[in-house]
């Protein structure tokens, strides 16, 4: 399964969450094997900002830093989550 396909799959399988708490990842099996934190993962609160829903650009703000991620699939999943799906 390609990385993009896997993300789509995760987004679809996570769509059954209870109202108001939408899961961005699949169940524990996938979460444990595919979403392991790297040693450089942020260990503080993070603000994610999708400025333009038509782009694949995601701005992550943490501390005094900003990280811009270009990942259309990730943005799509966030948009879906924001839409309740």
């Amino acid at each position: 399964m390609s990385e993009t396909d896997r993300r789509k799959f995760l987004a679809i399988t996570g769509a059954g969450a209870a109202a108001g708490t939408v899961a961005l990842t699949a169940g524990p099996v996938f979460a444990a094997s595919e979403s392991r934190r790297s040693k450089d993962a942020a260990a503080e609160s993070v603000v994610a900002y999708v400025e333009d829903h038509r782009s694949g650009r995601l701005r992550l703000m943490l501390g005094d830093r900003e990280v811009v991620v270009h990942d259309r699939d990730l943005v799509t999943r966030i948009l879906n989550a924001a839409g309740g799906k």
Partner: protein
Amino acid sequence: MSSHREAPEIAKDPAADSTDTYAFVSPDRPGTVTIIANFIPLQKPDGGPNFYEFASDVVYDIRICNTGSGFADIVYTFHFETMVRNPESFLYNTGQIKEITDTTWNRPQFYTLTRTENGTTRTLGTRLAVPPVNVGTRSTPDYAHLADQAVHTIGGRKVFAGQRADAFHVDLGSVFDLGGLRPFNQAHLIPLAKMDGINSVQSFNVHTIAIQVPISEVTRKGNKPTDVMSRDSVIAVWSTARRRTSRILDRSTGRYVGHGKLRQVSRLGNPLFNEVIVPMGKKDVWNIRKPGFDSAFAKYVLQPELAKLLPVLYPGDTFKNLKAYTKPRADLAAILLTGIPAGVVDGFQNFTGGRQADMLRLNVAVPPSDNPNNLGLVAGDAAGFPNGRRIDDDVVTIELRAIAGLTIPLVDPSYTVDGAASAIEDGTTNTNAPLLDVFPYLGLPGGGYQTEPGTTKAS
């Protein structure tokens, strides 16, 4: 004015709102330059129990360009922290504050001062004390002593951060009531009885950051220039305030938490630029731009709205020649955007090159005046605005007269100045707190207990 609540967004964020910037060769230490930036406008001195203070989530800067680029070459940055000694008390002070270190001050502030040049940031001082606000006769019985204790010497520099009396004077009530100038009330489109101006800022305080540094620390060649006509003698100054990109309400503490890079939310170079030159729809974006990008705003300088309004508000022949003048205002562009080139005013220039940028330009080779004229350069005193800005310079009158056409002949000798352009003023004088002869020069802030209420007239 000069930049108090001048744009819609920053008016909602007083802690980051710059109000005035001053830059002048220090009259008592002419080997140094003093730069002062005020923030947090129109502070009513009795505004307790949560008195005005610097925001610890705002970073305050004094910026200097000595290359004409419109971008900062040197930045002095003030980072504040606030300490709460007893969070179980609602009081700002739990007893008299006689010394700046007294533990009766429940909410002391401190700051770290850094200097950045060529990408290198150096810390000049840490844990530098801010004085308390002037609470009143009982709480801060010797305020001058507290303020003195907050003047810090760092090498050849002096620095201060804290509350002061606003030194700006202007008739806000009349100016923003359809451009009224009380001494000329009878000539207004809606005439009223002629009267003296009322200084709206008289009883209000601000928060000040101030530095006094050797001139050689801020000039292009690292020296103390003596040739007025050399480009190397000119520095350009402005202030900024920066906040994190996002603010999230932390529901566990009830406080906002910032995330992301520090972003400029306020700036101030020349007085009144954003206030009366930049139109409403552009004021917010102007505040977040660097001066080096100001060419986008040049059209508002070249054809200022106020110059068109004056002949309407004061009809008849009052501003007849101004009304007929349709050429771009190269005089205002020189004053506000490029500095005044050589050959315009005999023996003077503060030109920084072709880059259009709103910066307060100071030719540091011009010595302090023995007899300052608060109308500055237009009155023949080259040590005053628009060559830098001294605290007592009457920038409202200077800029009103400039916009009314008084400075057009500097670049267009064919123009005949309207008589009113030489007389126009808002009618205020400096009735603010007395200035000091020494750093930080601004007067002591009014005290809360000593404050008397203003008008309640509705008509």
